């Protein structure tokens, strides 16, 4: 895809998301086939087999008011894979994530240099439709943040704003999304109840449904389980696992065990010369069992960080 494809997904164009889905659909189909043939669930390869980079950052550097927070991050992220971003606090993990859907725009005094390419298109280019970009690159925050509306409206309102005019279509998309996150059975009888009345884990799943209902290509997760209790955290983790193949998932986490279970690829962020940067990246297996960087080795063994 080229830059122009980035602009296809305009707010008023519903089917564009489906077009984009069709592009990623190839790997999803492979995944489905592989599962059908009885390939062991632990064998993740089929789901992100193509190793086709969908998001690429090039020499990405972020400054907050002149202070460099993240320096020179060059990293490909592969389609359909779950990429784990790990590392100690304050070394630019969330900053990296915020660059990918330009949430950095909202922070005053934040300056981004370098490039972020999504399907080859530079998302910081002046002609990019920011709203379409953010629809395509969904985001889940650390603390669940459902809107103070009803459960139903949390999903139908974004759909409506993105041009889904038919009420019945919104309802059916909502139902599908709630089923996708395993919330449907729990809330189907109280869709008009306030979303803030749900438990923390349910709220986080609702937020995930709210992102997925817009049919993004890429899903960014910023420590999605850290505010949840262990059981809710497990449910959300399984859910993220189920996104593999269908979405390109980038997840920031403090929890190494979490990353080890979920991620296909891992990038280790570390503080070097006062700014966060990637000191090691590669397939999760390799980073965890045969780390090349001494700091990574110490980190994954729990001796540092």
């Amino acid at each position, binding site marked *: 895809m080229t830059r122009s494809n980035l602009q296809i997904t305009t*707010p008023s164009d519903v089917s564009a998301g489906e077009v984009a889905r069709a592009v990623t659909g190839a790997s999803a189909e492979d995944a489905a086939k592989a599962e059908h043939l009885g390939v062991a669930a632990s064998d993740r390869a089929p789901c992100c087999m193509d190793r086709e980079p969908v998001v690429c950052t090039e020499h990405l550097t972020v400054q907050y008011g002149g202070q460099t927070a993240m320096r020179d991050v060059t990293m490909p992220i592969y389609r359909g894979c779950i990429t784990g971003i790990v590392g100690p606090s304050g070394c630019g993990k969330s900053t990296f994530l915020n660059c990918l*859907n330009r*949430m950095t725009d*909202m922070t*005053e005094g934040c300056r981004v240099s370098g490039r972020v390419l999504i399907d080859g298109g530079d998302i910081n280019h002046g002609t990019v439709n*920011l*709203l*379409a*970009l*953010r*629809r*395509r690159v*969904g*985001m889940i*925050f650390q*603390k669940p*943040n*459902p*809107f*103070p*509306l*009803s459960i139903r409206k949390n999903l139908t*309102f*974004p759909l409506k*704003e*993105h041009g889904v005019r038919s009420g019945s279509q919104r309802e059916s998309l909502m139902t599908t999304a709630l089923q996708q996150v395993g919330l449907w059975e729990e809330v189907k009888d109280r869709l008009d109840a*306030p979303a*803030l009345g749900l438990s923390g884990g349910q709220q986080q799943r609702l*937020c995930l449904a*709210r*992102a997925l209902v*817009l049919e993004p290509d890429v899903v960014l997760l910023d420590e999605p389980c850290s505010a949840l209790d262990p059981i809710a955290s497990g449910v959300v983790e399984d859910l993220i696992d189920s996104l593999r193949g269908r979405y390109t998932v980038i997840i920031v986490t403090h929890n190494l065990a979490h990353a080890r279970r979920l991620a296909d690829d891992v990038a280790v962020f570390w503080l070097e010369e006062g700014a966060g940067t990637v000191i090691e990246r590669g397939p999760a297996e390799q980073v965890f069992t045969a780390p090349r960087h001494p700091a990574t080795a110490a980190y994954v063994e729990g001796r540092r960080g």
Partner: protein
Amino acid sequence: MYRPSSDMLLLAILRCLALIAVAIVLLIVVFLLIESLPAVRSVGMLRFFGDASWHPAGGAEAGRFNLTPMLIGTVAAAAGAVLLAVPLGMGSALFCRFYAPRRIGGVYRRLVELLAGIPSVVYGFWGLMVLAPLIRQWQPPGQSLLAGILILTIMILPTVALLSESSLRSVPRSYLDGASALGLSRWSTIRGVALPAAWGGIFTAVLLATGRAIGETMAVLMVAGNVVQTPASIFEPVRTLTANIALELGYAMEHHRSALFVSGLVLMVMIVVIVSLASWINRGRVHV
């Protein structure tokens, strides 16, 4: 349970203060009731709404005690002002919170705060010298319901704007970030997320503004013309209940005086009705 003595002292002081606050309100109500009792007893409540006119000086029998035109004047002036001030104030709050660059927003808010601090007699004076003559050039006599509405609008505008703005400012950042991350435009975010989240505060703002519009006396008295009549158009002069009390209290005797306290009572009942109505409208809002 052990309580340090400083805590006990504080508790005692707070209890006293709370008691005083409640006592003052109750005493005012009791005073109003006692003072209006003679008129209610000898004139009867019905005549305050059914008499031919307002000529209260003739005593309980010969006097005429119709408060209705002034009640209508009060309601019309307050309603008109609220209808104008709410959209303006909301627009101002939204501009200040979501659209204005930081520096301009700060200066703008200062100016609105200044507007809130101007004494009502100054508004009235300005209205009398500037606003009423302007209206007179267009539709005589100038001192009119319209002038009253406009003055009240300017006076309650800062209440609506400042309270709505602070309510919008207290909407958690996480809601707004969540909305942005979904690719919602600024206006969608405001309409669909920020306004519903700030609803409670905005509602309170409108309620307080309405209360002030009903209760405001001096400025309206100076511009509204004060003729006791049911206005046929917004260009005709009206007298509000508050203005009536202020105008006549100086020379009112016996039943006349007591009748003025009845109009005070009517004002208070109006406020109580509005507040109850508001909490009834607001009853289902549990999302915030």
